[in-house]
């Protein structure tokens, strides 16, 4: 693969955009909902506690799984689009 073609640059940009998007969600559910923004979610009660607690002990982990599968699926798609996937 030649290093400096137009496509290579776009491929890398698409890759970074995807990573950036995933990291926003990643930070939002863990550092956001579960920790810093927990007081905002205090009004939503769930099983004797609030939604922030649920995100800290369940929701963030479930979101992480979804994020990795989404990343793998999108990234493998992008590889194909740019023709850099492995046969």
């Amino acid at each position: 693969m030649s290093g400096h073609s137009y496509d290579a640059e776009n491929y890398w940009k698409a890759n970074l955009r995807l990573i950036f998007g995933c990291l926003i969600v990643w930070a939002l559910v863990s550092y956001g909902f579960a920790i810093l923004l927990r007081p905002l979610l205090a009004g939503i009660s769930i099983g004797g506690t609030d939604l922030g607690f649920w995100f800290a002990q369940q929701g963030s982990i479930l979101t992480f799984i979804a994020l990795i599968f989404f990343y793998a699926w999108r990234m493998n798609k992008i590889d194909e689009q740019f023709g850099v996937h492995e046969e």
Partner: protein
Amino acid sequence: MSQFAINIIFVGGSFLLYILIAIWAKAGSTKDFYVAGGGVHPVTNGMAIGADWMSAASFISMAGLIAAGGYSNSTFLMGWTGGYVLLAPYLRKFGKFTVPEFIGDRFYSKNARLVAVICLIVASVTYVIGQMAGAGVAFSRFLEVDSTMGLIIAAVVVFVYAVLGGMKGITYTQVAQYCVLIVAYTIPAVFISLQLTGNPLPPLGLFSTHIDSGMPILEKLNQVITDLGFNSYTADIDNKLNMVLFTLSLMIGTAGLPHVIIRFFTVPKVADARWSAGWALVFIALLYLTAPAVASMARLNLMTTIYPDGTDAAPILYEDRPNWVKEWEITGLIKFEDKNNDGRIQLYNDTPAYQAEAEARGWAGNELTVNRDILVLANPEIANLPGWVVGLIAAGGLAAALSTAAGLLLAISSAVSHDLIKGSINPNISEKGELLAARISMSVAIVVATYLGANPPGFAAQVVALAFGIAAASLFPALMMGIFSKRVNNIGAIAGMLTGLAFTLIYIFVYKGWLFIPGTNNLPDTPDNWVMGISPLSIGAIGAIVNFAVAFVVSNVTEEPPVEIQELVESVRYPRGAGSAHDH
């Protein structure tokens, strides 16, 4: 059949299985030994990563930590899973056998590779001692052997499958160990969730109604423990900066730990590596979603065992204590002292705030100390589950400890044989010679780990601070910059790793003692003395930031990396032509 016989059958049966797998999966080449031939299926690899990752800490200690800390210790749940989101994007065609090899090639420097080897060895050795010690405890409790004897048995089993099979043997035993540990962890949890809430799924039971009281189970737990002077289980906390940084340190530490990363070198394609990260987290989450339920339910069970008639009534008589309390008293992990000589077990939080209440009730101090590590192991007995569940827990705890130990030992031995011996000392070593060197360094590593497991040095208890701090502050940034920046050069990377590492270690040593020697700390390890409330366990995240900053600044004032290195970075970014891990 006696409980002892049942335990022997479960543990012995699982060990036999691991050894049979080892004989079947013998390594014939260095490629087999380092990366299991490079042809592992993503789902299989996901399972192996699950066992590799979930250690004695996850299996035995984590639920106890959450039970003790409630909401604030959710950090472990998020921290030890969230790192996989960071890992996934840099699983690329490293095309290497080891982590230091990538760092050495990318930063075109033997010194960079050497720094990485040292970080790897310190982090992994700290980690492996904890696994061996954990295996020793499980043996001494369930198989009634001396814990040193237990350690030696564990070491022999690991020796057989890790030295014979290398990564290949480890991969397939880890798959079996994953199955054993997840069944062992979830079965008691399902039983307990059913008993307490009627819901067979523990993660749902956690937010369901407690059958006996008709209240949500977390509300009931809060009520019981706050009545006894403990902090509320679910309440929010004040020091959020530390909670954020601690979670971040665990996450980036996870993404920088070599024994996890090398598992991703075993699949054939980059696309497979990405899928296996997803599968790994699915398999890990089965335990991590269950753990918080185990934590709160076991804590409630413990409280209702001691206070069968409610917290306002008198606690049980010491004579009437259940059998499991007696069993654990023998190990010294539960201790009772009748301070007010009334023959009853007062379990409460002995703080000034509760002083008046305690005096009014005629209590002279908390009388029961329960080591939080026993929570998961004692869980089936606390809930009166049948004997075979206890046997299963014993086999599961050992599977968790041994699978992680094997992964770590492989990371250590490959760093020695591939990075030190082949990389520096004797580059012309033959394939056969390197395979032999790998087996010998693995054997030495096992002997050292067993010895240190039996005689744990001061740093062994500091796995979270030391292993995660080092991985977060040195290896993770170097790997990230190696892929995501073309500008960072050899001098920048080395300067970054060394300052990140030094910064992190100094902060830890100031509070925990220099080289963890008791009494040599400069400041007491309490929240009032921490800079901005940042605990020494959370400092790895700041160390990583220091590493990034230094590396960028130094790289920008020194020469650009050579063209062929910039091309190497380019080529790492594109999956095509990756193939499986290979040697140069």
